């Protein structure tokens, strides 16, 4: 019984799904507004909202710059008493050869500040990146409403 409860409280449930397709720079603003709407709906604080939106913005921009766009999934998730937003970014871009290097501050192949990926990781609660060269990259982040 106890172990069941433990897994239950740890399990992340997806309450709503909202896919968004990103192909142009204008889509970034649209996507950000969508994320913001969701964050407001689950009563996320202003600071966390800004963090989540900034993180989302970073990842979407990465996707546009390196993979010419891709798909985003906005989910409202819940784990026990916590509510949060999970964002999944999937692209079919060139992929990242060395993830550890990409996660280092100041490293960039694209003349940017090189803070997108490591910065995003610091902004959110959970950060997960999977990439295969030639196939694409999947990044998943979770920000809890009061985390």
């Amino acid at each position, binding site marked *: 019984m106890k172990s069941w409860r433990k897994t239950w409280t740890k399990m992340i449930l997806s309450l709503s799904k909202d896919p968004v397709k990103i192909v142009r720079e204008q889509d970034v603003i649209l996507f950000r507004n969508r994320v913001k709407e969701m964050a407001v709906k689950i009563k996320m604080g202003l600071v966390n909202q800004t963090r989540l939106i900034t993180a989302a913005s*970073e990842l979407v*921009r990465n996707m546009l710059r390196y993979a010419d766009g891709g798909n985003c999934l906005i989910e409202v998730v819940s784990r026990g008493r916590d509510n949060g937003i999970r964002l999944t970014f999937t692209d079919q871009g060139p992929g990242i050869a060395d993830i550890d290097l990409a996660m280092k501050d100041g490293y960039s192949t694209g003349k940017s500040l090189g803070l997108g990926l490591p*910065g995003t990781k610091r902004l959110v609660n959970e950060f997960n990146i999977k990439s295969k060269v030639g196939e694409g990259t999947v990044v998943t982040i979770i920000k809890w409403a009061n985390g």
Partner: protein
Amino acid sequence: MKTLSIFRRKTLIVKFIQDRNLAYQFTMSLNSYKLLQNKKKNILEKWMNNQLSDEGLREDLISNEELRYQSEELIDALVSNLSGESFSDLMSEEWNSVIEILSGISITRARQGFSPRETGNFVFTLKEALLNVLQEEIGEDSKLLFEESMKITRLMDNLSVITFETFIKGREEVILRQTDEITEISTPVIRVWDGILALPIIGTLDSARTQVVMENLLQEIVDTGSSIAILDISGVPAVDSLVAQHLIKTVSATRLMGAECIISGIRPEIAQTVVHLGIDLSNIITKASLASALAYAFKTMRLEVRKINSVQK
């Protein structure tokens, strides 16, 4: 003997066309096509009647003469450019002029502010008119009537799809133009004081926007000989690393011009986010509000704003 050879040749041709999968279209379209040619006047009258009696008629946007002219133009194009073979093949070249005219009408209507329904009705009423005439012509032969109606329906449906596609394209153009206009409008450079410029940035700062901002700012610095520029970002919803990079670039460019750049309007949540992202803005002068940036600017220019105590009576 002679008749037989002609017959044989005919079957050969039919077979050839059948091979190209066109036989059906060829034989069946002949009637509709001829009807269109012979009854042009009749169809136009019916169409005009349909259009004028329609509830969605927009006399405020388009005069009846103009509507008549548009309709006539379309029917003329339909009749004069078509041959029987390509009647139901919209991909063929003969349709180009028709599609061109239709798209032209559709785009102008989108710009004039017609609703999609009103634009679509332009084609739908033509379809109705065609079907009416068809019924009058064919009369009792229900099988033929059905076949011909199907043909016309298919054709007119295709045309209405084209109408909608171009209508939407027309609307999109309007939106794109507005986006451009917003970019233009939202980057004013304000001369707040002699030698002090302020530049309130509202909305997202993307590459195109930064370019406009930077150009305007640098030009204004040259024109006014200002030594201090204040970039106010209180209207920027989120500052991510790209926006920060653009800001840093703008500041460096301003410094190259010999002016100092202050970034103001940094909200608490933005400050936190910037720190978490790890963006280093420490060698840029930043202030929380435009007022404090202005106060700083006055201080550097050795200016003082004072309250006048002695009131003359």
